[in-house]
């Protein structure tokens, strides 16, 4: 639960001071909105009994958590109450649409954000979670490995972020030349630290037991994040001549993203290589995004979409049954087929998330304009959308 407010701080520090409240509010509001959506129908769609055996989506038999009690469900976790598993999965469902909010920061109308988030959670996150993690989901049956959400959380949010940024268009600051530097870097570091801490819950917790696998995922998570932060810092130092604080935090998040699908399948040494690789690739993706005409304000695609892709494919390379006997070996352990399966999962998540996000945004725009007006954008979303300011002048 701590991760999503942490994300709010991370994103909030990266935007300008006139938009910090609206950015923090995106994360906080989604925590509330999806908490209710998940109980009412989201969990049933994602993890409920497979609808018609197609592997696409769960049915609505668990609506309102009907039948989801404290007795364990052996299909998911045989040793913990079913509701404990449900509320653990809720936190993934919460943070995923919150991640997207970084792409359309500083220009999205709050009402459009609400409607988009509700539709996106229902028609993108819930089915995709079912594909990979739901009992009978087609990617899970295919053998796709995603320990804690590289495909379900990070590719889906990152690709959707790119589409959302493209559909919404660039901020007016990109034509006016207004400074868009982060307004509060200590807040960024605080948010990053909270995310890093919370990530232990996500990745180690995905072992669904206090056992060796959880410890392995814990060690891999911390190692990859640290290595990625060091690598990003070094690249940016060589590239721009300074060891950037924001760069170090971006690197840490990229490392956390990339190790997410692999955390319970790879060795600690592999996690170091994944940390190195993801910063190299994601730094390149940020530079590529700079050249594109898409204003992904907080680089959600470059860090989460690309980082999640790196992690998912790296799982197909480095996975070993020596770490997780219930999984599969990757290419480097004699099973090239796993890399192919991971590629299918990655491509499926990219296409599904991208197309569905485009459709949802177009539908939302019929009912509520996606963007604020130029005047409201210039004023800042804190004032124009919430009539509040983060820092009082008095």
């Amino acid at each position: 639960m701590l991760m999503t407010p942490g994300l709010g701080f991370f994103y909030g520090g990266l935007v300008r001071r006139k938009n910090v409240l609206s950015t923090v509010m995106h994360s906080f509001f989604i925590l509330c909105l999806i908490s209710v959506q998940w109980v009412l129908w989201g969990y049933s769609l994602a993890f409920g009994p497979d609808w018609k055996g197609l592997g696409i989506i769960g049915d609505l038999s668990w609506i309102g958590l009907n039948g989801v009690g404290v007795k364990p469900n052996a299909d998911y976790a045989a040793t913990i109450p079913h509701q404990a598993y449900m509320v653990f999965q809720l936190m993934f469902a919460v943070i995923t649409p919150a991640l997207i909010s970084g792409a359309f920061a500083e220009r999205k109308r709050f009402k459009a954000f609400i409607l988009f988030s509700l539709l996106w959670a229902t028609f993108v996150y819930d089915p995709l979670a079912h594909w990979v993690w739901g009992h009978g989901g087609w990617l899970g049956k295919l053998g796709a490995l995603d320990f804690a959400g590289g495909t379900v959380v990070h590719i889906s949010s990152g690709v959707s972020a790119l589409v959302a940024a493209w559909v919404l268009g660039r901020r007016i600051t990109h034509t006016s030349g207004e400074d868009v530097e982060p307004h509060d870097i200590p807040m960024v570091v605080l948010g990053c630290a909270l995310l890093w801490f919370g990530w232990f819950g996500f990745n180690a917790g995905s072992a669904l037991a206090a056992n060796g696998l959880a410890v392995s995922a814990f060690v891999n998570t911390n190692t990859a994040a640290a290595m990625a932060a060091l690598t990003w810092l070094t690249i940016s130092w060589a590239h721009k001549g300074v060891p950037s604080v924001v760069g170090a935090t971006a690197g840490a998040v990229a490392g956390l993203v990339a190790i997410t699908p692999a955390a319970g399948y790879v060795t600690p040494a592999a996690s170091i290589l994944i940390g190195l690789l993801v910063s190299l690739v994601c730094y390149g993706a940020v530079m590529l995004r700079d050249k594109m005409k898409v204003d992904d304000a907080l680089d959600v695609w470059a860090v989460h979409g690309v980082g999640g892709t790196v992690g998912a494919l790296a799982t197909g390379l480095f996975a070993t049954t020596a770490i997780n006997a219930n999984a599969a070996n990757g290419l480097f352990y004699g099973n090239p087929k796993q890399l192919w399966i991971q590629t299918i999962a990655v491509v499926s998540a990219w296409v599904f998330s991208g197309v569905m996000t485009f459709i949802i945004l177009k539908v939302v725009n019929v009912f509520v304009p996606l963007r604020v007006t130029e005047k409201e954008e210039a004023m800042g979303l804190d004032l124009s959308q919430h009539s509040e300011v983060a820092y009082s002048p008095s």
Partner: protein
Amino acid sequence: MEIIASLVAFFALVAAWFVLPSAPPALQARAQSVPEALATAA
């Protein structure tokens, strides 16, 4: 019955968000004065 009532309550809230104004005119006026105050303070 409880599930139906909770669904109705949730969608009533969602509907209300779209009926309610984005920001009341009085607050908008106050909001527009804040940037000036911020600029003065700076």
